[in-house]
C-alpha cells in the first residue's frame, strides 16, 4: 500500500531521504497546525501587557489563571455556550432525521417519484450556498403558507442545516449497500416499513450515522454567517458569532481566554471521535459522487 517497497527502504539514500522528509513534515505540522493553538492556550493565561510586549515568550511574569474565570464570568460565556449547544443539538437532530428517513424512503421503499426527488436533492449540491443566503433569510423571515417568522429563534438557526444533500447521498448510498436478503427476510417475517426502519436498517447503519453525526455537530459549531444573520439578538447568539462583535471592546487577554474556551470544546470533540473524522468514508464517497 505504499510507493516505498522494502527493497527501496534498503537503499541508504531512500531511507535517509524518506526519514528526513517525514521528520521535516512532522516538525512543520507541529509548528504550523499545533503552534497557533498552543500560543492561544498560553496567551489565554498571560496578562495582556506581557502578550503585547513579548508575544513569543512563555510567561515572563508567570501565568495568571484568573483570566480564564474572568472571561467566563465577565463575558457571560456560559449563556453563549448553551446557545451553541442548543443549535448544534438541533442541527444534529434535523440532519439525522432528514438524512435517515429520506435515505430509507429513496433506497428501500422506492416510491414512484423517487428518482425525480433524488435528482432534486442532488441538484441542490451544485447550487452555490451564496445563491441561497438572501432568499433563505426572506423565507425564514416569513415561512410560505403559514407566514411564521423564525428569525430570532434557535429553530431558524438550525432547521436549514437539515437540507444537506451530502447527508442524503451518504445515507442513501449506505442503505443501497445493505444486503437485500436481510431486508427481504425481515419483511417476510412480517416487519412493516416502520419496524424495518427502526429495528433493522437503523441498527445496521451505526457507523455511517456516526460519521454524519460528528460532521453535523462540527459544522453547526463552526457556522458563522447564517446564525449571524438569523439571530440578531446577542443573547441568543452562539459563541462563535458573539466573539467577533465583543472583540473590539474586550481586553486582549480576556478575549484570548474566551477564544481558547470556544476552540477547546470542538478540539476535544474531535480528539474523542477522531476515528470517525479521519476515516471519513462518507466524505470520500460523496466527493466521488
Amino acid at each position, binding site marked *: 500500500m505504499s510507493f516505498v517497497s522494502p527493497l527501496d527502504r534498503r537503499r541508504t539514500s531512500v531511507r535517509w531521504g524518506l526519514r528526513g522528509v517525514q521528520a521535516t513534515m512532522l516538525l512543520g505540522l507541529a509548528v504550523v497546525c499545533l503552534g497557533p*493553538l498552543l*500560543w492561544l492556550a498560553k496567551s489565554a493565561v498571560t496578562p495582556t501587557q506581557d502578550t503585547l510586549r513579548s508575544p513569543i515568550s512563555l510567561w515572563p511574569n508567570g501565568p495568571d489563571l484568573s483570566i480564564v474565570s474572568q472571561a467566563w464570568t465577565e463575558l457571560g460565556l456560559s449563556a453563549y455556550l448553551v446557545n451553541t449547544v442548543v443549535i448544534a443539538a438541533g442541527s444534529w437532530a434535523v440532519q439525522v432525521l*432528514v438524512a435517515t428517513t429520506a435515505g430509507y424512503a429513496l433506497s428501500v421503499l422506492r416510491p414512484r417519484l423517487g428518482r425525480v426527488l433524488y435528482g432534486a436533492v442532488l441538484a441542490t449540491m*451544485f447550487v452555490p450556498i451564496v445563491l441561497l443566503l438572501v*432568499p433563505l433569510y426572506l*423565507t425564514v423571515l416569513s415561512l410560505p403558507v403559514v407566514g411564521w417568522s423564525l428569525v430570532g429563534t434557535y429553530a431558524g438557526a438550525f432547521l436549514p442545516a437539515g437540507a444537506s444533500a451530502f447527508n442524503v447521498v451518504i445515507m442513501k448510498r449506505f442503505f443501497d449497500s445493505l444486503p437485500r436478503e436481510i431486508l427481504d427476510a425481515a419483511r417476510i417475517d412480517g416487519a412493516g416499513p416502520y419496524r424495518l426502519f427502526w429495528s433493522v436498517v437503523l441498527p445496521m447503519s451505526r457507523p455511517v450515522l456516526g460519521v454524519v453525526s460528528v460532521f453535523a455537530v462540527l459544522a453547526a*459549531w463552526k457556522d458563522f454567517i447564517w446564525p449571524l444573520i438569523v439571530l440578531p439578538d446577542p443573547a441568543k447568539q452562539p459563541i462563535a458569532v458573539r*466573539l467577533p462583535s465583543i472583540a473590539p471592546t474586550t481586553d486582549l487577554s480576556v478575549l484570548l481566554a474566551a477564544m481558547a474556551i470556544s476552540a477547546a470544546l470542538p478540539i476535544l470533540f474531535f480528539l474523542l471521535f477522531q476515528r470517525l*473524522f479521519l476515516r471519513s468514508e462518507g466524505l470520500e464517497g460523496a466527493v466521488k459522487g
Partner: protein
Amino acid sequence: MSRVGGPALVRGPARRRTSVASVVARWWRGGAATLVFLLPMLLVFGLFSWWPIARTAVMSLQETNLVGPAEWVGLENFRTVLADPLLPTALRNTAVFAALAFVFGYPIPLVMAVVFSSLRRLRGLYACLAYLPVVVPPAVAVLLWKTFYDAGSGGVFNTILGWVGIGPVPWLESAGWVLPSLVMEATWAAAGGTVIIYLAALTTVPQELYDAASADGAGVLGKIWHVTLPHLRSVLLITLILQIIGTAQVFLEPYLFTGGGPSHASLTLLLLIYEYAFGSTTGGGDYGPATALSLMMAVALALLSWIYFRLTRGWSD
C-alpha cells in the same frame, strides 16, 4: 401493522390474485408509510432549499422593502449591480483570492497526503495534527490570526520575522499584502480536510501497480509520478473545481479580518452581496441587487463547472 407489504411484495405475483379493494388498501398503507418517511425531506428541502432557489429567480426581477408588496422592475437590479463601481473591484479581488488560494492551497494537501502515505507508523498522529485547524471555529481562527497579523513590530509574525531581520510587514493594513494574508489563514484552516480525502483515495491504489513499477526499475519518485498521481487524477479534478467554487464564495475571512478594507482591497463578491442585503455601511435592505448578483454568480459558477467537466472528461478514469 403486521401485513404492511413493502413495494417489493406488492410488485410480486400476489398482485394478480388480490381484489381491487385490497390493492388500494395495501397501496394506501405502503404509500402512506413512504410519504411519512419522505415528509421530513420534503418539508426541510422544500422550505430551506427548493423554495429559496426558485425564489431567487423571481426576486432578482423585483424590488422589495419587505413592508409593501414587491414590485416588478424587470432587469433594473441587474443594471444597478453592473453599474456599481465596486463590482469590478470585488470581481478582481475574488479572482486574485481564488488564484492565490489555488497556488498555495492546492499543492500543499497533495504533498502532505503523499508524505503521510509513505509512513508505516504514526500516520494517525500526522493526520490528527493536519486536521486540527479544521475543527477550530473559523471565527476563532480569524481572531487568532488577526493578533498574529498585528502590524506593529510587536505582532507575533513580525516579532518572528524580526529575528531574521525582516522589517515589520503591514499584513492587513496594505492593499498589496491583505489578500495574501487572508489566503494564508484560509489555507491553514482548510488544508486538513483535503488531506483526508486524498489519504482515503491513496489507500485504494493497488499494490500490484507499485510492484510492477518497481520491477520495471522505477524509484520512489518514479512511482509517485507514474502510479500515485495518475491514480489520484479523478479525485484531484473534483477537489480542484470544488476549491475554485469554494474560494469564489469567500466571505468569512474578508468580513472578519478587514470588513473589505483597506479601501476595498479585500472586498469580495460575497461581501458585496452581504453589504447590499444586510450591510451596515449602506444600510442594507437592497435585496433585489443582492439576489441579482447572487444569481449571476451562481450561473457563472455553474457554467464554469460545466465547461470544466467537459474539458476534463477525457482525463478522468
